[in-house]
């Protein structure tokens, strides 16, 4: 692992709300440079909300989010633009621009922010595509790519400006286990070889256990962080009920008692007794 001790992301006293509905209350954590940091938790616990605030799409009620020492919450104009150039984001569905080829999608940030000639932009975009294993698909339109390829291409686009931080929203969602494992291995190798800090939102257990250096477990009950640490240690030894519920895949509260069989299905003996 390529984790340094210095903090690259620092979230302090972050409170977020949609109108009157408070989603996160006084959340605080640090992400170390070069680590793969995963935000985990059940659906609806505020993972994506946290991510959207960290990448500046939503404004928090209060709190600060320092990305490489600069607060994205208060930054405006050129300062904000500078912060945004230091991050890359992969959205859950890829969000590739449908009117452009994969190569142009990857090259777009370079076209916008550099004075490189088109030839150089294309060459860099091809390098980024080859890093994610899509070097032969540059001329494909996004609709011609499979789900896994779209996500890889989105990672390549997020890496276009070589940002030190990449945010990935549910990278494994909707992918088959083999493709998902391939994507996990790509993330791990990019983190280790390029020293990129990854902040990933996920609830895919196998993926979390294979890629994460550290996780925070979000919980909608406390509207914040229920646990933090190495996911393998949490899985092996934590006795916190929220942690156990997540890692043991139990259904919270009402589902604490798991049904022995599905009541809508008749037992075999009864089936036979039916006329």
């Amino acid at each position, binding site marked *: 692992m390529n984790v340094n001790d210095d903090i690259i992301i620092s979230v302090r006293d972050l409170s977020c709300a949609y109108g009157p509905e408070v989603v996160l209350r006084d959340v605080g954590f640090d992400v170390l440079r070069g680590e793969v940091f995963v935000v985990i938790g059940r659906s609806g616990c505020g993972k994506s909300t946290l991510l959207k605030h960290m990448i500046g*799409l939503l404004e928090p009620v209060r709190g600060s989010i320092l990305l490489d020492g600069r607060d994205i919450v208060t930054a405006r104009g050129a300062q904000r633009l500078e912060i945004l150039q230091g991050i890359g984001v992969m*959205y859950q569905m890829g*969000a*590739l*621009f*449908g009117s452009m080829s994969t190569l142009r999608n990857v090259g*777009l940030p370079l076209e*916008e922010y550099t004075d490189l000639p088109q030839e150089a932009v294309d060459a860099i975009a091809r390098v980024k595509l080859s890093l994610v294993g899509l070097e032969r698909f540059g001329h494909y339109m996004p609709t011609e790519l499979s789900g896994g390829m779209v996500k890889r291409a989105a990672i390549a686009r997020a890496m276009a400006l070589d940002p030190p931080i990449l945010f990935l929203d549910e990278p494994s969602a909707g992918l088959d286990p083999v493709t998902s494992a391939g994507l996990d291995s790509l993330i791990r190798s990019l983190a280790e070889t390029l020293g990129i800090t990854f902040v990933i939102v996920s609830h895919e257990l196998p993926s979390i256990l294979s890629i994460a250096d550290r996780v925070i477990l979000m919980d909608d009950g406390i509207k914040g962080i229920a646990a933090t640490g190495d996911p393998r240690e949490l899985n092996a030894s934590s006795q916190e009920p929220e942690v156990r519920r997540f890692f043991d895949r139990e259904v919270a509260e009402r589902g604490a008692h798991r049904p*022995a069989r599905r009541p809508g299905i*008749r037992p075999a003996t009864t089936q036979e007794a039916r006329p």
Partner: protein
Amino acid sequence: MQHAQHNTPLPEGLPEGLVIREEAPGVLTLSFACDLDSATVAGLWAPVLDSVRARAAGADTGSGPGAVRLEFTPDCYIDGAGLALLVKLRAEAEARGAQVTLTGLSESQEHLLGLAGQAERVASQKPHDRRGLRVLIQSGVGDILTTSAEIISYVGECALVLWDSLRHPERVRWKDVLLSALAVGVESMPIVLLIGFLMGLIMSFQSVITLQRFGGEIFVPNMLGLVMFREMGPLVTAILLAARSGSAFAAEIGTMRVNEELDALATMGISPVRFLVGPRILSSLCMVPFMVLFFNFASLVGGALVMLSIGFPLVTFTSRVFDNVTGTDLTGSLAKIIVFSLLVAGVSCLRGLRTGGGASAVGRSTTAAVVSGLILITIADGLFAVLFYYLKI
């Protein structure tokens, strides 16, 4: 069906396997030895609930709230409909103060009943209205102010983008402008020409029929030229632009919103107005003058056809048209269409940018784009009429 002895008759027509009896006054026992699925529950729902409603409250005996016992045999099959009946039975009985006991359910069935019961309790609770009148007014006013601020900011950003395009044409994404111009102008040419031709033909034909009675058909070319160049050309072209290209702008940008592509632009620090709206407005501005000219030409061809058919030579038609149509009419027409196209392209892109989530939101944005475009065209046309009157154009 078996009935015990009662003062009040129990419901008839219940399926085999269900026994309702009253062992003591106010103590009602329902024994289910049948399946409780969607087929049986349909017949059971009303009579079973009626009997529980009547007897759980001790209505017929006057003994006050009683008890309801629900018994099930081990092979009793219960699906979602059955669960709904049991939840409803229990809720009705408990609402009347009766004790409800269930026996014979399997562990998993009890678990599922617990889950379903909780859902029923949540559903029966009155939604907590956190929004009083004052809050509603405040949020309504807040929404209006926010929307107004967004529109002002959007108009300002569009103006800046256009100004920047003039000052630094090298920064414009000309490839996108060209692609958009193809869609807005070139691909719309057949419909523009067709509508123009038909309008010229129909207007001339109708006018000729009326004016022939007074021997005034010679004035048809004068009327056609003026009407088409001054009014109908820019108006109908703008309506075609709103219907054909405005809706496409809103749908394209709205779909990008739904697919998180606008979020992706935002996190790249790229302004959606510069990246998406700018090329579309520029392409509209570039193409609409040609569209108007082609529309006017097609309408004159339609008019000429009518005049030729009633025996006027082509040279008479053309000379009468161009004797009456002045350069001011043409420039006025072009000024109108430039303003109309700015309004249509601008409002359509704004509707696209303000799209909510889901496919239906894209549909709503598209509709709103066309409607807003038409309203703005009408208002602007009215203002132009007043302006031209005062300028004596």
